[in-house]
């Protein structure tokens, strides 16, 4: 079941060759490793572009978003 969260999080990510790949994130006091980035897509919010990452820790599926304009990460939903 998908639970909508939209909570700010701290993320460890690798920026390389114009791409960004989340490796882990801190969520409610736990460090969650990203085992697989299953899909990425963008979302236009006015002039800002939000990058979405569907990531799996092997158990749950998370939708992480990154707003490059303000360098803000959120966990949008968990399944």
């Amino acid at each position, binding site marked *: 079941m998908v639970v909508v969260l939209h909570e700010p999080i701290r993320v460890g990510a690798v920026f390389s060759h114009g791409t960004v790949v989340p490796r882990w994130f801190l969520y409610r006091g736990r460090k969650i490793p990203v085992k*697989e980035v*299953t*899909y990425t*897509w*963008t*979302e*236009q*919010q*006015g*002039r*800002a572009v939000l990058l*979405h990452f*569907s990531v*799996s820790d092997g158990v749950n*599926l998370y939708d992480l978003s990154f707003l490059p304009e303000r360098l803000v990460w959120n966990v949008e939903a968990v*399944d």
Partner: protein
Amino acid sequence: MNAFFASVEQRCNPKLRGRPVAVIGGGGTRTVVTTASYEARAWGVKTGMTMVEARRQCPELIFVPANNRRYTDTCARFVALCSEFTPLVEVFSIDEVFLDITASLRLFGGGRRIVQNIKQRLAAQFGLTCSAGIAPNKLLAKLASDLEKPDGFVEIPPDKVPAFMEQLPVGSLCGIGSHTERKLALLGITTCGELGRADPVLLRKHFGIVGEQLIRMGRGEDDSPVVPLDQTPDPKSIGHSMTFDKDISCRQTLEFHLLRLSEMVGRRVRHAGFAGRTVALTVRYADFTTFTRRRSVATPIYTTRDIYCVAKTILASIRLQCAVRLLGVSLSCLTGCPKQLELLPERQRQQALTRALDEVNSRYGDFTVAFGSLLELGEHSGVISPGWRPGGARKISF
């Protein structure tokens, strides 16, 4: 792309891979299946089925609500990928494109290499598959791409076209639906070979000017060009419609929805630099009776307020027979947005207000600033129209 929406969801969620999945629109109770995965299709689940019908076909079926942003973004990136092989890319639907590769064959080592390249990159970048067809024209290329699914590739060389068409059922051709197929069958025409040899006078008598076009289709002839996005003709109208979660009888609630639809239409009209003279209101009752009423005004309009006022007048003129299931608003008779400044102070204020709202909403997203009466309506997820395109006036952000 194969079972596009369902394949994207299966890529997103590893738990869905290899299992029967049906993507459903909206999320409300009256939603239908928009795409079924191949695993679900094997059980007989089809597009357009209600959730109950689909579940009856496949008890193990997993319903997934559509995520339009994923699909529209994937489509835009796929079109960008295809554009690396030729500038002539026509977006036929959200998951289908035509490429004119005539001038790219030598550059990329032939059509087969181009197809292999696109398939490999689609798999690597998105984890998706597609079926491709190479043929002398769009009609045959579409036909070829439909022959092998999923992940297929069929080439129809020009010299093989007559033999290929001879025994092919007429219903296989894009543009010949079940109704036309039945009418042709009554004339004794069931294969493309028979259609290509049909008497033009007979077909003109039964199908009008389309009759000769049908004969050309039967011969595998199609001279329509591949039209890239930047050369797509301007739309004749711009509109939005909305199916409600529950049927609505209250006129005031209908007017709130009308205002939201007018704002959606107005935003797109202004963004594309148009104004229009005719507002159309479409109403569908709970029993699916559907009708459209139009009203024209003397000068082209483009502000939300003007569109809403005309639409509201139309609604007021309708004696509602029962609860409303769907409302639609569109603006047609489009022209370029008038450059004439408003003379009346009230109109000037309206124009300035519209401009200011548009600037805020363009910066921060649609409905960031909206009419107060829309606040109680909540969000509406919307569905992707068949006319959606990744650019121009037909692009709608989700």
